[in-house]
Structures are given as C-alpha cells and as structure tokens.
C-alpha cells in the first residue's frame, strides 16, 4: 500500500480525487447553507411581528367622539402615539354600542408603528419627545408588547399597526377551493382517459405532448390567458377569486394529470384483468378497483400541485388580484387578494414596519406550504401500495 502512495503520480491522482469529492460535497453544503441562512433570515425578520406594542390608556366614549371628534377619546398627551386608524374606528363602534356613550374605560389600545419599532429596538422615526414619553410609560408598565392579534384578524391597511393577513387568507382559501374544484376532477378524468381508455393514435399522442408542454410554460403566460380569455372574453369580474381560481386551475392541471397518470400506471395489470375476468365492465374495473388503489398517489400529486398554486403570484397579478383589500371578500365574484399577492404589495410599502409584517406573512405562507408538502409525503409513505 505504501508503495503505491509513494508514487507521486498516484498521489496526485488521489489528491485530485479528494478535491473532486470535496467540490461535490461543497455544492451540497452551499445549497443547504443557503437554505439555513434563508430561513434564519426570514424568521429573525418576521418573528418580532408576532408581537405588537400596546398602551394602557383611558378612553372616554363621549358624545363628541360618537359624533366624529374621535381624537378627543384619548388624553392629549397620548393622542399622538395612539394609532389613528384605531381612533377613527371609534365613532362607528359607538354607533353599534350606544349604551357605552358617556362612559370611560381604561383599556389597552394599539399605538402607532413607530412606537412599536422603537420598543423593539429597531430603526424608527419617532421624535425624541415621544421617545421620552414612551420610556416614562414603559417605566409605569403602561406600555407593553403583546401577542399581535390584529395581524391575524384584520385585512390590509395603509397603517402598518393595523394591517393584517385575514382578507388575504380568506382570498387564498377561496382561490384554492376553486382551483381544486376545477382542476381535480378534470385532471383525474384526463388521467383516467389517457391511461385506461385512450386508443393509441396521433390525436392522443398530440394531447400527451401538449400536456407536457403546458407543464413547462411560464406561469405568467397563464396570467395573459386569464386576462384575455376569462376577463376580456368571458366577462368574469377582474380581481375576483373566480378568475384567479380558473387561471390557477389551468396552470395546475398538467401537474395533476401527470402525477395521476403515474399513480394509475403503478396499479398492476393483474388487478385490471381480475376485475374484467369476473365480468366487470372497463369503467367498473376503474371505478371500483383501480381508482381507489391509485388514490393515495393521485392525492399526493394533487396536494403538491395545489401547494404550488398556492404560492403562485405572477398570473394573479396579471388578472388583477393585487388590489388593496381591507375587508375579507364574501363571494367569489368580489375583488380579493391572496397571501403571496399580499406579500408582494407589502414589499412595495416603504415603511419599515411593513417589512416586518411581510416576513411574518411569509412565515405563515411557508408554514402552510411546508405542512402541505409534509402531508403529501406522509400520505405517500403510509397509504401507497408497494406492488
């Protein structure tokens, strides 16, 4: 052995071997490090948004407040650091609760985003005067960071302290349900036809090539399709969950077809032949035997396809789903937005407090997507038959 290694030519070749191996390993490490850095960065940026500064203040529900002078609800000293959006909502609140007029309560109220950023030690533009005030209040325990419920219970807002993801989440659910409703049946039907019934002719081969090509077309072009066909030709309302769902279902269709075909193909012929042998018709063989056996595989592929649709933004921007939506849509024909589009809109906001909320929204989106993928993997491992 030592003889071989003492040969300089061989030593050189072994060194090359080691270098090559290290390079390969390095590539993997690079990708994994990026992943770690990526998640660490997003989590460190988004985590603080789960907390929100609030202040204990005396709120007087006077008649003047009900009649529109909402600024009078809070003591003058504190007025400037209380969220204006919160104050502005007071008259409406009092109209719904007339029995409160004339009373005074002490409660925790939302403060402006600058105070929030100051308390978290982030860069902010709070004036020194108010910084002192906040410090004093904090010493008295009248200012604190609490769990940010507004982020999950409110829609979009121009004021970062009041902006939340609720309307985007509702929009995402609508769009995904519609996508599922359109693309799942059509996708599975297509796969069944191509796998079980289709004759082998030019037309069918054309369909197959076509599906493979569709799977590789950039998603933005599906947006152009949605704009030209669904909105301009069929008259589906712009920005609505319906047009978003239709566009995304066309985009998801090839993914579902391809994975469903793989799942159907994996069911052994013996099952088919046995069913036909005892007198089942071709459709009965598919419906009673092959489809149930292929279902875990089909579901896995569909979940992965839907997860992709859920993270998709570009086609939805083109069909107008990046609108400013403060209230959750109540029908599929109303203007709606989705979580990725909300992330996109917030990225364009210059205020730093929005960057924090964007990261938090990203964390929510990634958590949902990763758990969807985990469910898909779990389904595959626990229900898929190994033949």
């Amino acid at each position: 052995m030592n003889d071989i290694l003492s040969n300089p030519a061989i030593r050189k070749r072994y060194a090359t071997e080691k270098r090559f191996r290290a390079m390969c390993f390095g590539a993997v490490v690079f990708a994994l490090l990026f992943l770690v850095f990526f998640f660490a960065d997003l989590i460190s940026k988004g985590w603080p948004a789960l907390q929100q500064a609030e202040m204990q203040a005396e709120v007087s529900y006077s008649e003047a407040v009900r009649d529109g002078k909402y600024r009078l609800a809070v003591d003058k000293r504190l007025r400037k650091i209380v969220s204006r959006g919160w104050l502005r909502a007071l008259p409406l609140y009092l109209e719904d609760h007339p029995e409160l007029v004339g009373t005074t309560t002490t409660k925790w109220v939302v403060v402006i985003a600058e105070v929030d950023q100051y308390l978290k030690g982030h860069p902010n533009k709070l004036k020194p005067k108010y910084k002192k005030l906040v410090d004093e209040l904090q010493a008295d325990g009248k200012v604190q960071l609490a769990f940010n419920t507004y982020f999950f219970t409110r829609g979009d807002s121009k004021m970062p302290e009041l902006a939340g993801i609720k309307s985007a989440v509702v929009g995402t659910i609508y769009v995904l349900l519609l996508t599922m409703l359109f693309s799942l049946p059509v996708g599975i039907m297509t796969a069944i036809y191509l796998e079980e019934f289709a004759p082998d002719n030019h037309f069918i081969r054309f369909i197959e090539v076509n599906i493979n090509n569709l799977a590789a077309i950039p998603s933005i072009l599906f947006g152009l399709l949605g704009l030209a066909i669904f909105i301009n030709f069929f008259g589906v309302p712009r920005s609505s969950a319906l047009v978003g769902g239709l566009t995304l279902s066309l985009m998801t269709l090839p993914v579902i077809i391809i994975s469903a075909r793989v799942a159907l193909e994996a069911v052994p012929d013996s099952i088919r032949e046995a069913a036909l042998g005892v007198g089942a018709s071709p459709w009965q063989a598919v419906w009673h035997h092959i489809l149930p056996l292929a279902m875990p595989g089909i579901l896995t592929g569909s979940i992965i396809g839907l997860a992709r649709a859920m993270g998709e933004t570009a086609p939805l921007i083109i069909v107008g789903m990046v609108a400013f939506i403060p209230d959750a849509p109540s029908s599929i024909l109303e203007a709606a937005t989705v979580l990725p589009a909300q992330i996109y809109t917030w990225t364009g906001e210059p205020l730093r407090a929005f960057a924090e909320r964007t990261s938090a929204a990203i964390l929510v989106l990634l958590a949902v997507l990763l758990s969807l993928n985990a469910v898909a993997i779990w389904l595959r491992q626990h229900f898929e038959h190994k033949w």
Partner: protein
Amino acid sequence: MSTANILFIITAGIFPLAFIAYRLGTKKALSGNGGVSLHSRPGYYGWVAVVGLCFPAIAASLIASLLHLTGLYTVPLPMLITAGLILGAGGLWLALRAINPELRARNFVEAIIKWLLLIASTISIFTTIGIVASILFEALHFFNMVGFWDFITGTEWDPDTAFLAGAGRGAEGVAQAQFGSVPIFAGTFMITAIAMLVAAPVGLFSAIFMSEYASHRVRSWLKPMLEVLAGIPTVVYGFFAAITISPMIVNLAESMGLYAEATNALAPGIVMGVMIIPFISSLSDDVLNAVPQELRDGSLALGTTKAETIRNIVLPAALPGIVAATLLAVSRAVGETMIVVMAAGLRPNLTWNPLEGMTTVTVRIIDALTGDQAFDSPLTLSAFGLGLVLLVLTLILNIISISVIRRFRLKYE
C-alpha cells in the same frame, strides 16, 4: 347576468332534480314485468334517467351562454330556466319510456362516461389554444402599431408617451414612444446567465454527490431537502433578494470600491440560481442513475479513481440528459417573474455590468399590465408582444430538452 351566475343556477338546480330522476329510473327498471332479469345493475337505469334529464338542459344552457358571449342574443333568465326545465322533463320522459329490463343501460352509461373523459382530456388542448390565441391575437394588434422589426432590433424602450397615440394626440410633437426590445432581452439573458452560473455547477455537483458518493440513507433525506428550495414560492425569493441579498451586494461592492445600484442584476440572478438548483440536481441525478453500472465497474476495474471514472465515463454518457436538464432550467429562469419583478428594477438598460439595474421580459409584462393605460394602448399590448417571444422561446427550449431526454432514455433503457 354573468356566466358565473348561469353556472351557479345549473349546479344548484340540477343536483336535486338529478337525484329525483335517478330514483325514478331505478324504480322504473325494478318495477318492470317480473320474471325478466335486468340487463344491468339497477343504478345504471337511474343514470340513464339522469342523462335524459341533464343532457338536453345542459345543452340548452350551453347554447344560450354561447349566444350571450358572442353577443348575438341574450336569452332572458326566466326563459332559459323554463326552457331548461321543459327540455329536461322531455328528456326524462323519453329516458323513462326507454327503460325496460332489456335495455343495455350499462353500455349506454359507460359510452357517455367515455365521452365525458375524452372531453375532459381535450381541455388541455383548449388551454394551449387559448394561450397561443390570446397572446397571438393581441400581439398582432401590437405589431400593427409598432413594427415587428423595430421591436426586435430597436435598442430604445421608451413607451411613456404611448398613451398620447392612444388618445389620438400622437402628432403633438412629443417624442414618439419607442418599443425596441433589445435592452429587455439583454437584461433577461444577463440575469438568466447569472442564475445558470450559480445553478449549473452547484446543481450538477450536488447531483454527482447524491448519485455517486452519498450513501442511500444520506441521499434519501438530501434530495427532499434540496427540493424544498424549489417549493418555496417565488414571491418569497423575490422579497429575500430585494431585502437581504441586494443590500449585501451593495455593501460588498462598496467595500471593493465599486458602485452597485440597489436594484442590481446580481441579486435576483443569484437567488434565481439557487431556486433552480433542484431542477438541475434532481433531473441530473435521475440521468446519472440511468447510466448503467457496468460502465462504472469496467472503468474502475481498469484502475481509475472514482473521480476519473465520473469525469471520463459517467459524465460523457450522461451528457445529453444533463444538457436537457440545463435547458429546462434555462427556460424556467427566462420565464421566472416574481424574483425579477421585486429585485431587478424597471429600467431597460443595455449594459454588461451586473451591478447595474436592468429589466427583463417578465418585468415589463407585469409593468405594462398593471399600469393605468387603456387596454388597447401600445404599452399594454406590448405585454402580449413580449409574451409571444417568451412563449416561443420557452417552447423551443422545452421541445429540444424533452426530445434529448427521450433519446437518452432510449439509449440506456
């Protein structure tokens, strides 16, 4: 009266009626003259009745919506519903009359099912036709206003005054809008090239590590880990590129005495490269695994090291597949939208310097369609012109790579 409403009425009205028809059909079949056994199971007769009910009603509403869409005639809603009910009742009556124990209900229903399946599979064709037609049609509009040749060879993209022409004030002495797409394509290729410079080596070496060096266990968790990179939404990558990577690059360039714009081409390029690593690594991994083990064994038996075997035997054998994977990745990168929209800037810029901001085809498409100009202005329509080029480009890349992969598979399988 929108199409969506029509669809809603069909589904809400037809389901309960179909259930009744199903019950009627089964009952009719079972109550047939005793002694004769049924040809099919009773449910099939129920389905015959459902088909009898639904087919004419759906056909009528489809024709009505077609008339409405083409603008020929809008059928009033009450009339449509009445017509649907009458036709459905007629169809149901015919179906019930036809039902008798000897009717081959199973064959009939399955023929219908087969037709439905066939119709479902043509939807993908209609999608392709829809994409091609919508883009081509509007792109032709655009090329009527802006010469195709000017579009392909022009080096100035300055569409800001396009709305004047749209408003009929084209001749007011303001500089003409220019739609020269060269800087846009240059930006696209620059960012794609940066992405490929990151993705190709990292993806290929990762694939080699996974298929040649890693143990089975390592590989089984490494591959899903890398695929997480492909599962992250592009809007998240865009945010990451704009908020984290871009400032890092600006600082880095500053420390080296260079000037980098905040929306440089490098940040989106690098992040996009990372995004497509799994495309290359997964596909190349499959390709490398398809290379027969005998080739490796033969080479190793001659005394080569593993690295020499990989470089001289395995990689050349797998080359077509790797090239195809790279082409697929390029087509992915060219069509990628959100990362560049959020991090690459809007300014068409013909330069070799990746530290400057430049724009891409997809950015201009988004920008043109989210602007406030009328739909028939050249600026809005330019999105379709650019979309057409993008479509043709990705189709060519896909077709080449798919055929290369297929030939590669035929060679070794």
